[in-house]
């Protein structure tokens, strides 16, 4: 990693040049809610003035730039009694500006799932490699809990990360591409004071979290609480609408479908991001549904987020952005569900605890 500082006007010139020369996306005000709150979205930008650098968090994550909601994986053409398959992995270069630390952590987790396993996805790889990621630090929203999962800072997975230290941005340069681009612009080595300001900035961010979730031992608690009434309680509220998984930066479950072309001379294989909360997620051939109840489906979303992956790869895949909690029309959110599960156990502790006290 190389560290530099850049004045804010020069930073804007740098970003402006970048977005003018590339297919770029950045945070922009998309709407205002009925009670006046801003709603942000990663949208196409063609000049620096269109980017809202002071945005809070986007309603939907940046996942779809790497893992589109729908994607054609293969095309088939029939020739007489034969057929051939074409798969195209090419991805056009994209500049993505303003990702938060937790958003970049989410990409690192997707890397683990989609690149670092036994069967790397060429579709994901092409997009990941061809996307220039610029991170931007921010003060947490009151319901952000990424600190509980240690994703409020990030040290890899981006090309450039910018920390706001007042008059300047403190740049963490993590790729030769970013370093080369920046050569054209006036940057300086951080001074002692710049380093102090960065430390202060990080401390301010870290101290600003208002929501905390105790995720220690969560995989084990989830194992123990498999039959907990908590699942039915929250499941009964669930609308089965899949919104949580759609806005989530790490939910990657999908369905695959092959369809004939309308001329019947070919076919396509398509992937569609799905959600474990959708009613037919666990329906198998013959029609049996392994998870017919809302509570079962909700439970498995939490299991995948906080247990399954933690057991296999020693990390929970939730990054604590709380997009699911904000988007849920039924007010289901990780903090309340997980705290409820913990309370269940705590109340058990009160009645049966025989642990020896401290001597």
């Amino acid at each position, binding site marked *: 990693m190389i560290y530099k500082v850049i004045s804010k006007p020069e930073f804007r010139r740098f970003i402006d040049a970048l977005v003018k020369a590339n297919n770029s996306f950045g945070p922009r005000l*998309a*709407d205002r*809610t*009925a009670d006046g709150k801003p*709603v942000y*979205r*990663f949208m196409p930008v063609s000049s620096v003035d269109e980017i809202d650098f002071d945005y809070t968090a986007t*309603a*939907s994550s940046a996942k*779809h730039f790497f893992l589109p*909601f*729908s994607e054609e994986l293969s095309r088939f053409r*029939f020739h*007489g*009694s*034969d*057929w051939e398959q074409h798969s195209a992995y090419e991805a056009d270069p994209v500049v993505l500006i303003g990702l938060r630390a937790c958003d970049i952590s989410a990409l690192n987790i997707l890397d683990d799932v989609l690149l670092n396993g036994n069967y790397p996805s060429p579709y994901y790889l092409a997009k990941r490699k061809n996307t220039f990621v610029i991170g931007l630090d921010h003060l947490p929203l009151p319901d952000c809990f990424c600190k509980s999962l240690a994703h409020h800072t990030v040290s890899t997975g981006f090309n450039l990360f910018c920390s706001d230290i007042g008059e300047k941005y403190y740049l963490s340069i993590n790729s030769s591409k970013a370093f080369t681009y920046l050569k054209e612009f006036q940057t300086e080595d951080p001074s002692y004071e710049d380093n102090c300001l960065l430390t202060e900035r990080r401390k301010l961010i870290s101290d600003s979290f208002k929501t905390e979730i105790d995720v220690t031992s969560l995989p084990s608690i989830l194992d123990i609480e498999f039959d907990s009434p908590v699942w039915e309680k929250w499941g*009964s*509220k*669930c*609308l*089965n*609408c*899949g*919104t949580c998984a*759609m*806005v989530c930066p790490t939910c990657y479950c999908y369905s695959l479908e092959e*369809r*004939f072309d*309308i*001329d*019947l001379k070919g076919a396509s294989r398509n992937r569609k*991001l799905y*959600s474990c909360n*959708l*009613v*037919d997620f666990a329906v198998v051939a013959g029609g049996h549904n392994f998870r017919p109840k*809302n509570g079962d489906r909700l439970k498995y979303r939490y299991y995948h987020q906080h247990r399954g992956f933690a057991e296999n790869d020693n990390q929970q895949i939730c990054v604590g952005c709380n997009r699911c909690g904000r*988007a849920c*029309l*039924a*007010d289901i959110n990780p903090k309340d569900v997980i705290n409820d599960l913990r309370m269940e156990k705590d109340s058990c502790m009160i009645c049966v605890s025989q642990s020896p006290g401290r001597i």
Partner: protein
Amino acid sequence: MKNPVYTFEKLKFASFEFTCCEGCQLQLANREASLAEFFSLLDVRTFREISSEKHDDYDVAFVEGSISRSDEIERLLAIRRQAKTLVAFGTCACFGGVNSLKNRYPVEECIAEVYDGLPVESLPVRKISDIVKVDFSIPGCPVAKKEVEWIVVNLVTGSLATLPKYPVCVECKEQLNTCLFDLGEICLGPITRAGCDAVCTTGKTPCLGCRGPADDINFPAFLELVEKRGLSRRDLKEKLGFYNAFEAYPCP
């Protein structure tokens, strides 16, 4: 890799309209880019909107509209006798549609209002499945031609045709739309069957449920949502009743 040659027969196809605006049938003649391929899958035997030819030897009948006269019942029964596959086509056929608004008033009052006292026969509106067995339903006001194309391809190839079981929210989120509830509206997206690509909500128009309820919806939770957001119960009832698609979910 060697594979048997695919040979398929065209569907002996007929399209009929009852009480409706014929807009769903018009969709069959829409989406010009694939129109030639679409009609090459069909041997059109009867389809008044696009051809004056009429033959009664069809296998697959698309039926648009609801039933609101006794002669319509006779025609529909005849279609059912002939068709091997009868498809309820569009929201009116599937649920009664906008026409069902009439059922809220005495029939005589409607006739007096609309026909100014002319002696016109008009029955309370019924959906197609109230009269005959329906083999497949394609809801939508109007139907989504892309979905129709896919279903027709499946009928031709003998594959399983299905509609999405999940609600519109999935497709709305794919479009990155701001939730209309957050904009202070009542939207039926969370309880309505997807497949429309969230075309209304993408245009910031709340979903009125033209595709009917998704599978296994959580209606009590939806009522609670409207209540909790302080939105109008009357507005909700208007929206639920608009296409008569939520008949099975009475709103107190």
